[in-house]
């Protein structure tokens, strides 16, 4: 059961990663990347690393995403 | 007998200090001249003061500091080194006087005299180098500090000559460096010693290749064909520089380096078993003849001198490559003989150029009437080169022939004879032109060079005669050469 859950999460993670690089819309890519971070956060929580998970949620999914959003706001939204 | 003494380092240090003083105070003509002449005199005194001891067999040593664990910056005045030092410090003084006269109308005099002194400093450093690394150090420094002298004119032609000069000599330096590295790896030391650094090594292959590398390295400056290409083009430099380059510092540094390689790195005994030394002798013989041939076809006075230098330097190499005492005597003595004769020639060429503006040989018709003293000096030098007895050049040829016979390679005597003929073929026409071919229709007035140019010229000519007349007077280079030979061959 646990193995299956692991697999599901890992599969989701890789799917997110591929989706991020395939999305031409930078805003969308950033949001998916944020989701990717949250999945990663779940995996770590599941692996008994709540400290790392919390940091990843706050920093990876939070601050990093905000910084990307700010940058996209000040530059361009679409990738050519 | 080795004695620790400060004088071997004092001699190069004096010229080095002179460089600094010239750069600092050289804007004033007086101080520039004062320091140049003062340092030259002081150095001559220091070097000469060691002479009696050296003749008695004393070796003055001074260890300055260790560069690396095991290899130091050391100075050692043995007979061979002293010989080179005496010649170059004598000629520095004479050339300085000449240069003061010659350079009057030139630009950038501070730079000129500064680097001039630096060159001489490094030359003495080469003469007194205690080990191969110190030798290399000064050898490379010499390359660098002659560069500003070669390109003194700053014309495109001069810059091109400077590039060529650097290309040749730096590649040569690289070979010397490689050779030093391999030598150190093979012998564990670089201290120049009597039986030779490598005398205990064996293995013909590496020794041969190493020898080729070292000969190529020093041979560039000694202008062995085919490594001579830089020398004729470096003629664009002002005449005192050409004189310094071709008579004293640069080319002789190469030749001296080769002597060190043959006598102190390999040692005579070891080389006798290496066939490659014979090839060096053949190459030298070829250079003697080929250099002379080319010289015949040069119309520019200084270029003819340059090719003559190429040819003459190989006398030294040939003498050393014979590996016999007589050959060695000839080789060492020729350092002085060629130096004094060639510098006389350059002084003459420079004086003519400064006084009349003429640089080509065909323009020299009747010059003997206008500048009789100068041309008299020229005649003395030319006769010396041709090898007429009573002149310095004869001594070399005589001993070289003896050396050739001593080693059983009699055909080198034929080379000597052929060389004399060739020398005659390119020196005598000038004498003829100068004295016997006054151009018709022009009145020739006496118009001699200024005293600062004439005096050194005549002084050198006197030396040429002196060197040819007397071979046994203590204190003159020849006796020193014999002392060096005794030392090298353990006689």
């Amino acid at each position, binding site marked *: 059961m646990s193995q299956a859950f692991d697999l599901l999460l890992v599969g989701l993670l890789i799917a997110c990663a591929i989706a991020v690089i395939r999305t031409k819309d930078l805003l969308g890519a950033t949001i998916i990347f944020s989701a990717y971070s949250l999945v990663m956060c779940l995996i770590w929580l599941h692996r008994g690393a*709540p*400290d790392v998970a919390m940091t990843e949620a706050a920093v990876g999914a939070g*601050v990093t995403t*905000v*910084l990307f959003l*700010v940058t996209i*706001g*000040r530059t361009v939204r679409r990738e050519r | 007998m080795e004695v620790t003494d400060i004088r071997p380092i004092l001699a190069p240090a004096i010229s080095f200090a002179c460089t600094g003083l010239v750069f600092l105070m050289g804007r004033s003509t007086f101080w520039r001249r004062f320091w140049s002449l003062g340092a030259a005199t002081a150095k001559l005194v220091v070097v000469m003061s060691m002479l009696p001891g050296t003749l008695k067999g004393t070796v003055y040593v001074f260890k300055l500091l260790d560069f690396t664990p095991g290899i130091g910056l050391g100075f050692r005045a043995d007979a061979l080194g002293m010989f080179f030092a005496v010649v170059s410090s004598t000629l520095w003084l004479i050339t300085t006087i000449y240069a003061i006269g010659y350079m009057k109308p030139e630009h950038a005099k501070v730079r000129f005299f500064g680097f001039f002194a630096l060159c001489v400093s490094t030359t003495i450093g080469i003469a007194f180098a205690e080990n191969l690394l110190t030798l290399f150090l000064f050898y490379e420094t010499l390359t660098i500090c002659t560069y500003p002298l070669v390109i003194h004119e700053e014309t495109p032609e001069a810059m091109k000559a400077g590039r060529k000069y650097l290309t040749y000599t730096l590649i040569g330096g690289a070979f010397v460096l490689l050779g030093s590295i391999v030598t150190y790896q093979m012998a564990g030391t670089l201290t120049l010693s009597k039986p030779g650094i490598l005398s205990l090594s064996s293995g013909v292959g590496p020794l041969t290749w190493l020898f080729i590398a070292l000969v190529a390295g020093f041979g560039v400056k000694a202008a062995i064909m085919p490594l001579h290409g830089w020398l004729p083009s470096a003629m664009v430099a002002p005449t005192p520089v050409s004189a310094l380059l071709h008579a004293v510092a640069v080319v002789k540094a190469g030749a001296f380096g080769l002597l060190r390689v043959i006598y102190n790195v390999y040692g005579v005994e070891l080389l006798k078993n290496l066939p490659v030394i014979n090839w060096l002798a053949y190459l030298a013989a070829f250079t003697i003849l080929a250099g002379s041939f080319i010289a015949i076809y040069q119309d520019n006075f200084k270029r003819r001198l340059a090719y003559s230098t190429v040819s003459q330097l190989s006398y030294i190499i040939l003498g050393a490559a014979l590996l016999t005492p007589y050959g060695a005597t000839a080789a060492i003595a020729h350092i002085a003989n060629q130096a004094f004769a060639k510098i006389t020639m350059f002084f003459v060429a420079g004086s003519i150029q400064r006084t009349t503006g003429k640089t080509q040989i065909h323009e020299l018709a009747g010059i003997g009437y206008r500048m009789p003293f100068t041309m008299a000096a020229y005649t003395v030098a030319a006769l010396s080169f041709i090898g007429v007895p009573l002149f310095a050049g004869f001594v070399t040829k005589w001993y070289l022939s003896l050396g050739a016979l001593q080693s059983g390679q009699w055909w080198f005597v034929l080379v000597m004879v052929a060389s004399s003929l060739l020398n005659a073929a390119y020196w005598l026409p000038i004498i003829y032109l100068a004295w016997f071919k006054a151009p018709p229709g022009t009145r020739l007035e006496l118009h001699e060079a200024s005293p600062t140019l004439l005096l050194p010229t005549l002084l050198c000519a006197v030396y040429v005669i002196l060197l040819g007349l007397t071979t046994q007077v203590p204190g003159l280079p020849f006796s020193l050469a014999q002392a060096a030979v005794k030392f090298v061959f353990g006689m």
Partner: protein
Amino acid sequence: MKRALTAAFLVLVSLPLLYAMSQLPQHGSATSPAYTHIAPRYLERGPEEAGAENVVTDVILNYRGFDTNGEVTVIFTSLAAVFAVLLAGREGDERSASEPRARTTPEVSPVASFVVRLLSPFVAIFAVYVVMNGHISPGGGFQGGTVFGALLILATVVLGKATAEKLQPARIRGLLQAAAPLTFIAVGVAGLIMFGDYLAFPKAAALAWVRTLWLIVIEIGIGVGGASIISAIFWQMGGDR
């Protein structure tokens, strides 16, 4: 073409990587060197000798405190770096001035504004909780600081920069931003003077409360520094417009 080549290259690279991974100790094994060498001591003796029940906190603030000292320096560096890149450059001045400022302050709905105002105290309390309880539960200075920084960012977006900046008086802003490294240095030097080693905590069993206190002091320092730096980076990058 470039993509195909890159992909092929990466597949090639990944094979040895995977092979090497297969040679590593089994994932999750309790007998791997990683689990049997240093970690046991931390797990067994951490809470008592290092001062926190959360062993991760023990490691980051005590056993390997110097790493964290470096870590807070990294984020301070990042702040300085962002300043170095974005502070008014010479010819950049007119450029940024001429940028349309119209879109800078979008209309914020009153609902959002109200929600933020309402939530702020709770978020702040949560942040403080995370900081203060880092030694017994997951979380700690940096996580709490980030949460607080997020609050500031939120406040900036919804209520404007002026409101948010009130929390960081200009006079001491420099000190606030440097709070984390400075706290570390202070504690470290105190340890050096009192116990002979930089970042040394008291070792005696009776002084357990001092150990815990020092941990909390460091956590607060990291929290304050983290929050100030994150909000400052956000402002500097122009998130306030």
